[in-house]
């Protein structure tokens, strides 16, 4: 399965969905074998504030990275677009 995008139309090598599916499956499989059941009373270390799932970078740092890097993803859906670069 291939994205029906512009890359093929401009002579480039378009990424395939196959690779993405493989990545996803590998990581999910890893997840399945890597975890053990941890009871709530055993989560003292996991409760440390620095173990939060939130990004530690502030809004300015996140925005600079979004503008500097040609990639996106891994962040919040709340980021709005800008004509920054």
């Amino acid at each position, binding site marked *: 399965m291939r994205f029906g995008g512009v890359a093929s139309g401009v002579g480039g090598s378009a990424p395939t969905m196959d690779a993405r599916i493989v990545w996803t499956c590998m990581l999910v499989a890893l997840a399945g074998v890597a975890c053990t059941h941890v009871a709530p009373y055993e989560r003292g270390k996991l409760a440390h504030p620095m173990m939060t799932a939130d990004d530690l970078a502030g*809004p300015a740092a996140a925005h600079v990275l979004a503008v500097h890097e040609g990639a996106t993803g891994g962040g919040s859906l709340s980021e709005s677009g800008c004509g920054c670069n």
Partner: protein
Amino acid sequence: MQLTASARRPSRPCLPSLVAVAALLVATAEVQPARGSDSSDTDQTSTAREEGSANRKKAEDKSPLEDTATKHASMELAGYSDSDHVTVVTPSIAAGIDNVSGGSLNASYLVDIVSAASADIVSTASRRWEEVRQAGSLSGQYKPHDFGVGVGSSVSREPDYLSYGVYATMVKDFDEKNWTLNFGYGFSHDTAGRCGGEGGPGPSCTPFSVFSRDLQRGSFNAGISWVVDRASLASVSSDLVIENGDQSKVYRYIPMFSPSVAAGIPNGASIDYVNSVRLPERPLEQLPLERHRFALTGRYAHRYDGSTLRLEERFYDDDWGLVASTTDARWIFDLGKRFAFWPHARLHVQGGASFWEKAYVSNNPNGDANTWDLPLYRTGDRELGPLWTTEGGMGLKWYLGKEAEPRSWQLGFSGDAMYTAYLDDLYVSSRTAFLGALTLEAEW
């Protein structure tokens, strides 16, 4: 997964307990007037009854229901400067409230004050320009037990650009929160206009009703996070972003070269050199009108005795042919109860878009000056070209709260230096940048 939230407030009563307490209060409130009624049948006068009632009311007023909500607020002042003569100052504020029943409401607002005289601007004979961007967001989430939903909206405004978006999220915990699934969808609509003349951005703007370009963006997100062991958390999330519209910048003119000259243009060729060898025509940038972007991000966090290690890896590719890898590491060390310090490192490597060229070729097969054969897609956006960026820095937090809750007030500082190598570009072959931020956070 919100393990942190639940663990940081372990003494919070659960909903059934709250219901029981509330029922008891209601029952007590009903009984007390009844007692007063009974006593009125004995020797109490009407005035005494009124005084007794007033005293009871005062006593009730002195013991109101406890406010169990957690409020938090933060402000940040950040500054960015780079070797391409771009400076940005960003003050921002954020505030939120988390209710004990699982509801939360958050809002944020920031201002970007940009001053730029980059090589791209100078190459178009433009002056340094300044611009202000304002952005705000509002979001809410309700997660009473192991299932939660959230909604949010955001808006960003520049003189020549307007973006607004909405999103919705869904999260579900399984196996006593040992693993969690989350899904989300966001939609945003961007409108790009134009300010200033042909030389670049300026103070006078053309109304959107006269000239504008629209960009619509749909973002799908799905992820799983899980408890690896008693000291480790991990997560994997995927993002699919579908963009429709013309993202080409209306200020970006692309120099064109004859085939024989294009082959010999060096990386980072100066503005004067480019102007001396380029062809007369200099068309505007033109990007494809559709883009599908995909990212897979893995995160891992491990709590040691006295420190926390956080790792992140993101793979990215899109149908413009751009493939990238981003690695981020942060190791936070506790320095007693009052301080935390961390080194931070980041490496981003990407290839160029399939239509990226350092020097675009314009053929003139018929020898007619009016029939230039321009490439269909052409860009000068360096973030679409091959590059790598390495970033290193540090952060420090000072917990200023009372002895019992030192983290209720936090003062933070972070500073990062970035070096970017542009591997196949005009004007600029590298960029050095510095980003610093000062933050103040409070929770009560």
